[in-house]
């Protein structure tokens, strides 16, 4: 799948892994997370001890309601953060429901929230905000960026606009017959506090499309 692939993310923040379907984004993510171990080559993680990988098809056990599950899996040190995340992710109304009773968007938000309540240095979010409307998605990403400025995120998405707008470094993965197989670009890293430069955003989007 990968041939002489080389890429790096150099600082904490909200970064993206972008590329067409089947190019190996999920495989690379699983290799970084340690879920896939049989490969040649090296993945070097500096100052990153806990890597978590989450994807949009995950489910919560059905015997709990959301509140019980979140309380059971949240470390004591993060209890305060739980309330904050529940509020900003719009999960208040879901707390007494079971996972299967939620809409797809609510399910994805709940799943992401429980990962954010864990101790991690790098969180890989594989299409974790699929089926979430644009306004809520923006609110969630901005909240993540403000709550965890020192952590590293790798956001896998097919949405070129949100990747260009919110991400700091964008690793564009290409198929194995293209050289180099990965190209790193810089996004707008929008955090909600400054005005977005429309022309620069369009420029980045064009670069991403051309690179992929």
């Amino acid at each position, binding site marked *: 799948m990968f041939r002489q692939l080389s890429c790096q993310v150099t600082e904490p923040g909200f970064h993206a892994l972008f590329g067409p379907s089947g190019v190996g984004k999920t495989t690379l993510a699983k290799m970084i*997370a340690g879920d896939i171990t049989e490969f040649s080559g090296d993945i070097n993680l500096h100052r990153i001890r806990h890597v*978590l*990988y*989450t*994807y949009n*098809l*995950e*489910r*919560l*056990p*059905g*015997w709990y309601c959301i509140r019980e599950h979140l309380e059971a*899996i949240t470390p004591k040190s993060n209890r305060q953060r739980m309330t904050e995340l529940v509020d900003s992710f719009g999960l208040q109304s879901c707390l007494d429901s*079971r996972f299967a009773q939620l809409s797809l968007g609510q399910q994805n938000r709940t*799943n992401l929230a*429980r*990962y954010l309540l*864990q101790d991690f240095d790098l969180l890989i979010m594989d299409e974790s905000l699929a089926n979430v409307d644009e306004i809520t998605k923006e609110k969630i990403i901005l909240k993540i960026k403000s709550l965890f400025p020192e952590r590293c995120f790798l956001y896998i998405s097919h949405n070129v606009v949100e990747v260009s707008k919110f991400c700091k470094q964008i690793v564009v993965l290409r198929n194995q017959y293209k050289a180099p197989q990965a190209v790193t670009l810089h996004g707008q890293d929008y955090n909600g506090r400054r005005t977005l430069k429309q022309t620069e955003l369009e420029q980045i989007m064009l670069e991403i499309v051309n690179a992929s």
Partner: protein
Amino acid sequence: MLHRRVYQFLIIYFIGLGTLMLVKYSLNLSDYTIPGVSEIWTTCRRYFGLYLMAVLNTLCVAILGHLLSICMATVVGIIGRLTIWIGSFIRVAAYNIQAYPIVAVAPIIFILLGDGLSSRLLIAAMICYFPLLLSFIGILSEPVQEIEHFFESTRRMNWRLQVKIRAFENIHKLITVIVGSATLAMVGTIVAEFIAASAGIGYSIRIALYQSDLAKILVALFLIGVCTSVYLVFLEWLGWFIKRRLGSI
């Protein structure tokens, strides 16, 4: 649910009885070969109470055997789900041993344990144990990746949680298998009693067979069918109740 299942059994039973009568009267067979309706009715009135107690005796042993086999299948299924050598060994052993007919081993059990309760119980349990075991091993060794991933990534996974997740996710299958194996438990007990036991409806059928008394056998079959139907309906209700409590329906 109860009336439907009993109703279905009664239809099948009386179709069978009707066919027998059709054969009897069309071939002009004697009452000795196939008894008439009045003789069956007389036998029924005479032996109903006795046979009902015998069927209830058999049913009690079948239920105990069923419970025993569920416990055994759960324990062995939990060990068999392991990816290390012992899990693999148990899976292979279970597939190989279940191919061997338990009825063929039954005489050895009777020789070793006698014709009492323990032999009937053991044979009943063994006859419904292997189908249960294969399903339990299959269900418990199949990862539910989309739920287990979180607990594995956050290092919270332990064997109890893993079993709980897999059992919960497959609760419909588990209940179907348990209900299905209840019939086997009843069959196993009757077979055991038929071979060598000294109590139960299987034993009564064996006596009736030696006497060539088809009327008694028909009465026994009627009571077995009704009692088994009631037991199956009870298990289905229990399954429905469990699923409801777990929020699965």
